[in-house]
């Protein structure tokens, strides 16, 4: 999300790039930079965090009370904001853009604990000090001769 926001792009699917900042505002507050990265003092994006929820859910958002007004000003979930909508959190009917959902799936896959069925047999290593296997030694030279290697 932060990488997208740094480029002034919405992390929300089909929301594209944010509207550029007004030139006067940019000159006054951001040294002329019109990149709409939602980053003026850093407080809003520093407050972008996640919470673990029951079951297989997490919540991502701005939970710090002092930053929620600012967050709604950009996301306009309340419908009361007069600012150009720069949505950085998906509404209930929206989702994150693909690169983010793919990343989430990768994280889940990398952290999946696969329960192995109980084995009827146990394999005991013959020698725990073995750390390097020489394939020529294991298969024998004649094996490679057979394949012309």
């Amino acid at each position: 999300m932060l990488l997208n926001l740094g480029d002034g792009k919405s992390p929300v699917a089909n929301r594209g790039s944010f509207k550029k900042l007004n030139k006067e505002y940019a000159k006054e507050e951001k040294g002329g930079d019109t990149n709409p990265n939602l980053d003026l003092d850093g407080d809003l994006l520093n407050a972008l965090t996640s919470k673990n929820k029951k079951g297989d859910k997490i919540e991502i958002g701005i939970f710090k009370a002092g930053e929620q007004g600012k967050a709604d000003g950009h996301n306009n979930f309340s419908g009361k904001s007069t600012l150009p909508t720069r949505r950085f959190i998906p509404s209930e009917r929206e989702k994150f853009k693909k690169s983010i959902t793919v990343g989430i799936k990768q994280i889940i896959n990398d952290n999946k604990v696969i329960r192995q069925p109980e084995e009827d047999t146990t394999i005991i290593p013959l020698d725990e000090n073995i750390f390097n296997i020489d394939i020529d030694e294991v298969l024998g030279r004649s094996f490679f001769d057979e394949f012309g290697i």
Partner: protein
Amino acid sequence: MANVRVKVDTRKLRKNLSKVNPAINKAIAISAPQFIIEFIKKGISPVASVGGRFVKYSTSYVTAIKKGYVKNKKRSPVNLTLTGEMLRSITSKATSTGATISFTDDKAEYHNKGTNNVPRRAMLPSSSGEKFNRNIELRLREVATQVINKILG
């Protein structure tokens, strides 16, 4: 005697495999600095355990920026860039086991480790157990995959 027989010659494969490691290391040495700088410029630490965005600049520094005492400097994102000299000092070199990446500018050490007056803003993993953030790790893995596909594909 077997009626159906095939001979598998893996000499070419083995020869190509020997090229993989050096090529991956070289590609990582070229790509990693670009990824690192991209993150820093957006105010995000490339280091995983430090997590997310760099610590904000001090109130006094932000005031100085607002008053125009620090030329060409924005108060956010915290991109560790004033003249750009420090970030330009990033260097990398492929080694036999991977790549080494470093900043040659003296200021880098102050930021990377932090001092009594400067909070730590980690640019490179330095303590044991630290690693690049997940996004950079995935990108490096992708670089390695591309190299493998190019050589063996």
